[in-house]
Protein backbone atom coordinates (compact mmCIF):
# COMPACT_ATOMS: atom_id res chain seq x y z
CA UNK A 1 0.00 0.00 0.00
CA UNK A 2 0.95 3.57 -0.55
CA UNK A 3 1.35 4.49 3.09
CA UNK A 4 3.78 1.65 3.62
CA UNK A 5 5.67 2.58 0.51
CA UNK A 6 5.94 6.18 1.57
CA UNK A 7 6.87 5.16 5.09
CA UNK A 8 9.66 2.92 3.83
CA UNK A 9 10.93 5.62 1.48
CA UNK A 10 10.90 8.01 4.37
CA UNK A 11 12.69 5.75 6.80
CA UNK A 12 15.63 5.54 4.43
CA UNK A 13 16.10 9.25 4.20
CA UNK A 14 17.51 11.48 6.88
CA UNK A 15 15.09 13.45 9.02
CA UNK A 16 15.16 17.15 8.92
CA UNK A 17 15.58 18.39 12.40
CA UNK A 18 14.92 21.87 13.59
CA UNK A 19 16.84 23.77 16.18
CA UNK A 20 14.39 24.15 19.07
CA UNK A 21 12.96 27.64 19.22
CA UNK A 22 12.44 27.64 22.96
CA UNK A 23 13.36 24.35 24.58
CA UNK A 24 10.72 23.02 26.95
CA UNK A 25 11.59 20.98 30.02
CA UNK A 26 12.90 17.61 28.84
CA UNK A 27 10.99 15.43 31.27
CA UNK A 28 7.45 16.09 30.17
CA UNK A 29 5.82 13.02 31.63
CA UNK A 30 7.30 13.37 35.08
CA UNK A 31 7.09 17.13 35.30
CA UNK A 32 6.40 18.40 38.81
CA UNK A 33 2.83 19.68 39.32
CA UNK A 34 4.24 23.00 40.45
CA UNK A 35 6.10 23.36 37.15
CA UNK A 36 2.97 22.46 35.16
CA UNK A 37 0.98 25.11 37.01
CA UNK A 38 3.66 27.69 36.37
CA UNK A 39 3.75 26.87 32.66
CA UNK A 40 -0.06 27.07 32.34
CA UNK A 41 -0.13 30.35 34.25
CA UNK A 42 2.60 31.85 32.07
CA UNK A 43 0.82 30.86 28.88
CA UNK A 44 -2.48 32.39 29.98
CA UNK A 45 -0.88 35.59 31.25
CA UNK A 46 1.09 35.93 28.02
CA UNK A 47 -2.01 35.44 25.83
CA UNK A 48 -4.36 37.54 27.97
CA UNK A 49 -1.97 40.31 28.87
CA UNK A 50 -4.16 43.02 27.37
CA UNK A 51 -7.15 41.87 29.43
CA UNK A 52 -8.00 43.18 32.88
CA UNK A 53 -7.14 40.80 35.70
CA UNK A 54 -4.43 38.87 33.87
CA UNK A 55 -1.76 40.06 36.28
CA UNK A 56 -3.65 38.78 39.36
CA UNK A 57 -4.20 35.28 38.00
CA UNK A 58 -4.08 32.46 40.56
CA UNK A 59 -4.89 28.74 40.34
CA UNK A 60 -8.56 29.31 41.22
CA UNK A 61 -9.24 32.34 39.03
CA UNK A 62 -12.21 31.61 36.74
CA UNK A 63 -10.73 31.67 33.23
CA UNK A 64 -13.89 31.61 31.14
CA UNK A 65 -16.28 33.99 32.94
CA UNK A 66 -13.52 36.56 33.28
CA UNK A 67 -12.84 36.27 29.55
CA UNK A 68 -9.16 35.47 30.17
CA UNK A 69 -9.66 32.50 27.83
CA UNK A 70 -11.97 32.80 24.81
CA UNK A 71 -13.20 30.24 22.28
CA UNK A 72 -10.62 31.45 19.82
CA UNK A 73 -7.74 30.85 22.26
CA UNK A 74 -8.75 27.27 22.93
CA UNK A 75 -7.14 25.55 19.93
CA UNK A 76 -3.79 27.21 20.60
CA UNK A 77 -4.09 26.42 24.30
CA UNK A 78 -5.00 22.77 23.69
CA UNK A 79 -1.94 22.42 21.46
CA UNK A 80 0.19 23.93 24.23
CA UNK A 81 -1.26 21.42 26.70
CA UNK A 82 -0.49 18.57 24.28
CA UNK A 83 3.08 19.76 24.01
CA UNK A 84 3.37 20.06 27.76
CA UNK A 85 2.09 16.61 28.51
CA UNK A 86 3.63 14.95 25.47
CA UNK A 87 0.33 13.42 24.42
CA UNK A 88 -2.52 14.47 22.15
CA UNK A 89 -5.81 15.74 23.54
CA UNK A 90 -9.05 14.21 22.29
CA UNK A 91 -11.43 17.17 22.41
CA UNK A 92 -14.44 14.89 21.89
CA UNK A 93 -13.79 13.52 25.33
CA UNK A 94 -13.48 16.71 27.30
CA UNK A 95 -16.09 19.04 28.71
CA UNK A 96 -15.67 22.81 28.53
CA UNK A 97 -15.71 22.85 32.36
CA UNK A 98 -12.15 21.55 32.34
CA UNK A 99 -11.10 25.08 31.33
CA UNK A 100 -12.64 26.62 34.47
CA UNK A 101 -9.34 27.31 36.28
CA UNK A 102 -5.73 26.19 36.48
CA UNK A 103 -6.80 23.73 39.18
CA UNK A 104 -9.35 22.04 36.89
CA UNK A 105 -6.87 22.05 34.00
CA UNK A 106 -4.26 20.21 36.06
CA UNK A 107 -6.89 17.75 37.24
CA UNK A 108 -8.32 17.21 33.74
CA UNK A 109 -5.15 17.02 31.67
CA UNK A 110 -2.37 16.13 34.06
CA UNK A 111 -4.05 13.65 36.39
CA UNK A 112 -0.84 11.63 36.70
CA UNK A 113 1.20 14.58 37.81
CA UNK A 114 -1.37 16.07 40.20
Amino acid at each position, binding site marked *: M*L*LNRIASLASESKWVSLA*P*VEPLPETRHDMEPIEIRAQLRDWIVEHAKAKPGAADLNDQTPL*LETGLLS*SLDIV*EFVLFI*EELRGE*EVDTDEIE*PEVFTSIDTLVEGFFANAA
Partner: protein
Amino acid sequence: MESSDELAVRLTNLSREQFWNVYEEFEWPEALDPERYQMQAELCSLYGTELWEDMTEEQRKRLSLYEIGNFFSLTLQGERPLVAGLSDRLYSKKVSSEATEYLHHFIDEENKHMIMFGIFLNKYLGKVYPEKKISLGREYGKGEEEVAFFCKVLVVEELGDYYNVKMMLDDSIEPIVKRINWVHHRDESRHLGFGRRHLTELAEHWLPQWSDETKKGFSDWLGQYVRSSWADFYNPTMYKDAGLEKPYDVRKMALAHPATAEHRAKASKKLLNIFLRLGLLEALPAM
Protein backbone atom coordinates in the same frame (compact mmCIF):
# COMPACT_ATOMS: atom_id res chain seq x y z
CA MET B 1 -29.48 44.09 -10.13
CA GLU B 2 -30.78 40.61 -9.44
CA SER B 3 -32.51 40.43 -6.04
CA SER B 4 -31.33 37.87 -3.54
CA ASP B 5 -34.53 35.85 -4.02
CA GLU B 6 -34.00 35.85 -7.79
CA LEU B 7 -30.46 34.71 -7.18
CA ALA B 8 -31.71 31.89 -4.91
CA VAL B 9 -34.11 30.70 -7.63
CA ARG B 10 -31.38 30.80 -10.28
CA LEU B 11 -28.95 28.87 -8.04
CA THR B 12 -31.65 26.32 -7.20
CA ASN B 13 -32.16 25.69 -10.92
CA LEU B 14 -28.42 25.33 -11.47
CA SER B 15 -28.09 22.87 -8.59
CA ARG B 16 -30.93 20.79 -10.05
CA GLU B 17 -29.35 20.80 -13.52
CA GLN B 18 -26.01 19.73 -12.08
CA PHE B 19 -27.40 17.31 -9.52
CA TRP B 20 -24.76 14.61 -8.96
CA ASN B 21 -24.35 11.30 -7.22
CA VAL B 22 -21.40 11.15 -4.88
CA TYR B 23 -21.27 7.35 -5.13
CA GLU B 24 -20.94 7.44 -8.93
CA GLU B 25 -18.86 10.55 -9.42
CA PHE B 26 -15.43 9.07 -8.67
CA GLU B 27 -13.26 6.14 -9.60
CA TRP B 28 -11.19 5.67 -6.48
CA PRO B 29 -7.72 4.32 -7.29
CA GLU B 30 -6.42 1.45 -5.17
CA ALA B 31 -3.59 3.64 -3.88
CA LEU B 32 -2.17 7.10 -4.48
CA ASP B 33 0.98 7.47 -6.56
CA PRO B 34 3.85 8.23 -4.14
CA GLU B 35 5.92 9.66 -7.01
CA ARG B 36 3.55 12.59 -7.25
CA TYR B 37 2.75 15.52 -5.02
CA GLN B 38 -0.68 14.96 -3.46
CA MET B 39 -1.08 18.65 -2.59
CA GLN B 40 0.51 21.27 -4.78
CA ALA B 41 3.96 22.12 -3.35
CA GLU B 42 3.25 25.88 -3.28
CA LEU B 43 0.20 25.21 -1.09
CA CYS B 44 2.03 23.07 1.47
CA SER B 45 2.26 24.89 4.78
CA LEU B 46 6.06 24.82 4.99
CA TYR B 47 6.64 26.05 1.43
CA GLY B 48 9.07 28.97 1.36
CA THR B 49 10.63 28.19 4.75
CA GLU B 50 14.23 27.07 5.32
CA LEU B 51 12.91 23.76 6.63
CA TRP B 52 11.21 23.12 3.26
CA GLU B 53 14.48 23.95 1.48
CA ASP B 54 16.29 21.39 3.65
CA MET B 55 13.79 18.62 2.94
CA THR B 56 14.41 16.05 0.23
CA GLU B 57 11.95 15.69 -2.63
CA GLU B 58 10.74 12.45 -1.01
CA GLN B 59 10.12 14.13 2.30
CA ARG B 60 8.21 16.95 0.61
CA LYS B 61 6.03 14.47 -1.26
CA ARG B 62 5.41 12.56 1.93
CA LEU B 63 4.42 15.79 3.70
CA SER B 64 2.11 16.69 0.79
CA LEU B 65 0.02 13.57 1.50
CA TYR B 66 -0.63 14.67 5.08
CA GLU B 67 -1.12 18.27 3.94
CA ILE B 68 -3.93 17.27 1.58
CA GLY B 69 -5.27 15.09 4.41
CA ASN B 70 -5.27 18.05 6.75
CA PHE B 71 -6.83 20.37 4.16
CA PHE B 72 -9.64 17.92 3.36
CA SER B 73 -10.16 17.29 7.09
CA LEU B 74 -10.40 21.02 7.79
CA THR B 75 -12.95 21.40 5.02
CA LEU B 76 -14.98 18.45 6.29
CA GLN B 77 -14.81 19.70 9.89
CA GLY B 78 -15.95 23.14 8.70
CA GLU B 79 -18.86 21.65 6.77
CA ARG B 80 -20.33 19.94 9.87
CA PRO B 81 -21.38 23.13 11.72
CA LEU B 82 -22.21 24.71 8.37
CA VAL B 83 -24.82 22.05 7.61
CA ALA B 84 -26.13 22.24 11.19
CA GLY B 85 -26.52 26.02 10.97
CA LEU B 86 -28.15 25.95 7.54
CA SER B 87 -30.61 23.24 8.63
CA ASP B 88 -31.49 25.39 11.58
CA ARG B 89 -32.55 28.20 9.25
CA LEU B 90 -34.78 26.14 6.91
CA TYR B 91 -38.42 27.30 6.95
CA SER B 92 -37.57 29.90 9.60
CA LYS B 93 -38.18 33.64 9.52
CA LYS B 94 -34.43 34.15 9.18
CA VAL B 95 -34.57 33.32 5.46
CA SER B 96 -37.10 33.71 2.61
CA SER B 97 -38.94 30.73 1.13
CA GLU B 98 -36.80 31.05 -2.03
CA ALA B 99 -33.70 30.88 0.13
CA THR B 100 -35.06 27.84 2.01
CA GLU B 101 -35.49 26.09 -1.33
CA TYR B 102 -31.87 26.82 -2.21
CA LEU B 103 -30.59 25.87 1.25
CA HIS B 104 -31.92 22.35 0.64
CA HIS B 105 -29.40 22.10 -2.21
CA PHE B 106 -26.66 23.82 -0.24
CA ILE B 107 -27.09 21.25 2.56
CA ASP B 108 -27.35 18.34 0.10
CA GLU B 109 -24.13 19.40 -1.62
CA GLU B 110 -22.26 19.93 1.64
CA ASN B 111 -23.38 16.51 2.82
CA LYS B 112 -22.00 15.00 -0.39
CA HIS B 113 -18.73 16.88 0.12
CA MET B 114 -18.37 15.38 3.58
CA ILE B 115 -18.98 11.90 2.12
CA MET B 116 -16.41 12.56 -0.63
CA PHE B 117 -13.73 13.88 1.76
CA GLY B 118 -14.53 11.14 4.24
CA ILE B 119 -14.00 8.40 1.63
CA PHE B 120 -10.70 9.93 0.53
CA LEU B 121 -9.41 10.36 4.07
CA ASN B 122 -10.39 6.93 5.31
CA LYS B 123 -9.13 5.20 2.19
CA TYR B 124 -5.73 6.87 1.84
CA LEU B 125 -4.89 8.19 5.30
CA GLY B 126 -6.93 5.86 7.46
CA LYS B 127 -8.29 8.79 9.47
CA VAL B 128 -9.90 12.20 9.54
CA TYR B 129 -7.91 14.77 11.52
CA PRO B 130 -10.05 15.79 14.48
CA GLU B 131 -10.68 19.40 15.32
CA LYS B 132 -9.33 20.83 18.51
CA LYS B 133 -12.09 23.39 18.84
CA ILE B 134 -14.28 23.44 21.91
CA SER B 135 -17.31 25.63 21.84
CA LEU B 136 -17.53 27.82 24.93
CA GLY B 137 -20.61 29.71 23.88
CA ARG B 138 -20.63 33.47 23.86
CA GLU B 139 -23.07 36.28 24.37
CA TYR B 140 -24.27 38.00 21.24
CA GLY B 141 -25.88 41.37 20.65
CA LYS B 142 -28.88 41.74 18.36
CA GLY B 143 -28.15 40.26 14.92
CA GLU B 144 -24.55 39.41 15.81
CA GLU B 145 -25.02 35.66 15.86
CA GLU B 146 -26.65 35.68 12.42
CA VAL B 147 -23.91 37.85 10.91
CA ALA B 148 -21.18 35.81 12.66
CA PHE B 149 -22.58 32.54 11.29
CA PHE B 150 -22.51 33.72 7.67
CA CYS B 151 -19.03 35.23 8.21
CA LYS B 152 -17.79 31.82 9.34
CA VAL B 153 -19.42 30.21 6.30
CA LEU B 154 -17.60 32.67 4.04
CA VAL B 155 -14.24 32.11 5.77
CA VAL B 156 -14.31 28.32 5.34
CA GLU B 157 -15.61 28.55 1.77
CA GLU B 158 -13.41 31.40 0.46
CA LEU B 159 -10.17 30.02 1.89
CA GLY B 160 -11.03 26.51 0.74
CA ASP B 161 -11.91 27.73 -2.72
CA TYR B 162 -8.53 29.44 -3.12
CA TYR B 163 -6.92 26.03 -2.67
CA ASN B 164 -9.52 24.20 -4.80
CA VAL B 165 -9.01 26.52 -7.76
CA LYS B 166 -5.22 26.15 -7.61
CA MET B 167 -5.39 22.35 -7.46
CA MET B 168 -8.24 21.70 -9.89
CA LEU B 169 -6.05 23.00 -12.73
CA ASP B 170 -2.82 21.24 -11.74
CA ASP B 171 -1.97 18.16 -13.82
CA SER B 172 1.13 17.39 -11.79
CA ILE B 173 -0.74 16.37 -8.62
CA GLU B 174 -2.54 13.09 -8.01
CA PRO B 175 -5.51 12.93 -10.45
CA ILE B 176 -8.12 11.95 -7.85
CA VAL B 177 -7.09 14.96 -5.73
CA LYS B 178 -7.37 17.22 -8.74
CA ARG B 179 -10.82 15.83 -9.48
CA ILE B 180 -12.10 16.25 -5.91
CA ASN B 181 -10.98 19.88 -5.93
CA TRP B 182 -12.77 20.41 -9.23
CA VAL B 183 -16.01 18.80 -8.04
CA HIS B 184 -15.89 20.81 -4.84
CA HIS B 185 -15.32 24.10 -6.64
CA ARG B 186 -18.24 23.42 -9.00
CA ASP B 187 -20.67 23.51 -6.04
CA GLU B 188 -18.74 26.08 -4.04
CA SER B 189 -18.96 28.72 -6.74
CA ARG B 190 -22.73 28.72 -6.18
CA HIS B 191 -22.44 28.60 -2.38
CA LEU B 192 -20.06 31.56 -2.47
CA GLY B 193 -22.43 33.56 -4.68
CA PHE B 194 -25.26 32.96 -2.23
CA GLY B 195 -23.08 33.50 0.85
CA ARG B 196 -21.64 36.81 -0.32
CA ARG B 197 -25.06 38.18 -1.24
CA HIS B 198 -26.75 36.98 1.94
CA LEU B 199 -23.99 38.39 4.13
CA THR B 200 -24.18 41.72 2.30
CA GLU B 201 -27.89 41.96 3.09
CA LEU B 202 -27.36 41.00 6.72
CA ALA B 203 -24.58 43.56 7.12
CA GLU B 204 -26.66 46.29 5.49
CA HIS B 205 -29.53 45.44 7.82
CA TRP B 206 -27.69 45.06 11.13
CA LEU B 207 -24.60 47.30 11.05
CA PRO B 208 -26.55 50.59 11.21
CA GLN B 209 -28.22 49.27 14.38
CA TRP B 210 -24.97 48.39 16.17
CA SER B 211 -23.14 50.72 18.54
CA ASP B 212 -19.53 51.64 17.78
CA GLU B 213 -18.52 49.36 20.63
CA THR B 214 -20.40 46.40 19.15
CA LYS B 215 -18.88 47.07 15.73
CA LYS B 216 -15.40 47.26 17.20
CA GLY B 217 -15.95 44.06 19.21
CA PHE B 218 -17.24 42.24 16.14
CA SER B 219 -14.37 43.42 13.97
CA ASP B 220 -11.82 42.25 16.58
CA TRP B 221 -13.51 38.87 16.84
CA LEU B 222 -13.65 38.45 13.06
CA GLY B 223 -9.96 39.28 12.61
CA GLN B 224 -9.07 36.74 15.27
CA TYR B 225 -11.39 34.19 13.75
CA VAL B 226 -9.67 34.47 10.35
CA ARG B 227 -6.26 34.17 12.04
CA SER B 228 -7.26 31.12 14.04
CA SER B 229 -8.76 29.51 10.91
CA TRP B 230 -5.39 29.92 9.23
CA ALA B 231 -3.54 28.48 12.21
CA ASP B 232 -5.41 25.19 11.62
CA PHE B 233 -3.42 24.73 8.41
CA TYR B 234 -0.27 24.25 10.55
CA ASN B 235 -1.31 21.05 12.30
CA PRO B 236 1.41 19.49 14.51
CA THR B 237 -0.11 16.01 14.15
CA MET B 238 0.23 16.35 10.38
CA TYR B 239 3.93 17.24 10.76
CA LYS B 240 4.42 14.31 13.11
CA ASP B 241 2.69 11.95 10.65
CA ALA B 242 5.00 13.22 7.91
CA GLY B 243 7.96 12.25 10.06
CA LEU B 244 9.12 15.73 11.05
CA GLU B 245 10.80 16.17 14.40
CA LYS B 246 9.52 18.64 17.01
CA PRO B 247 6.14 19.09 15.32
CA TYR B 248 4.95 21.79 17.74
CA ASP B 249 8.05 23.85 17.04
CA VAL B 250 7.56 23.32 13.31
CA ARG B 251 4.09 24.83 13.64
CA LYS B 252 5.36 27.86 15.57
CA MET B 253 8.22 28.40 13.15
CA ALA B 254 5.97 28.10 10.10
CA LEU B 255 3.26 30.41 11.47
CA ALA B 256 5.85 33.06 12.30
CA HIS B 257 7.68 32.83 8.96
CA PRO B 258 7.31 35.83 6.60
CA ALA B 259 6.94 33.55 3.56
CA THR B 260 3.83 31.88 4.99
CA ALA B 261 2.42 35.22 6.19
CA GLU B 262 2.70 36.46 2.63
CA HIS B 263 0.86 33.37 1.37
CA ARG B 264 -1.94 33.85 3.91
CA ALA B 265 -2.31 37.52 3.02
CA LYS B 266 -2.55 36.66 -0.67
CA ALA B 267 -4.97 33.78 -0.19
CA SER B 268 -7.26 35.81 2.10
CA LYS B 269 -7.24 39.00 0.06
CA LYS B 270 -10.62 38.47 -1.57
CA LEU B 271 -12.24 37.40 1.71
CA LEU B 272 -10.82 40.28 3.75
CA ASN B 273 -11.80 42.79 1.09
CA ILE B 274 -15.41 41.62 1.30
CA PHE B 275 -15.39 42.05 5.09
CA LEU B 276 -13.76 45.48 4.80
CA ARG B 277 -16.15 46.67 2.12
CA LEU B 278 -19.16 45.60 4.20
CA GLY B 279 -17.75 47.35 7.27
CA LEU B 280 -17.53 44.10 9.25
CA LEU B 281 -13.77 44.52 9.56
CA GLU B 282 -12.52 47.96 10.52
CA ALA B 283 -8.93 47.29 9.45
CA LEU B 284 -6.90 44.51 7.86
CA PRO B 285 -5.87 42.01 10.56
CA ALA B 286 -2.18 41.03 10.77
CA MET B 287 -1.54 37.69 9.10
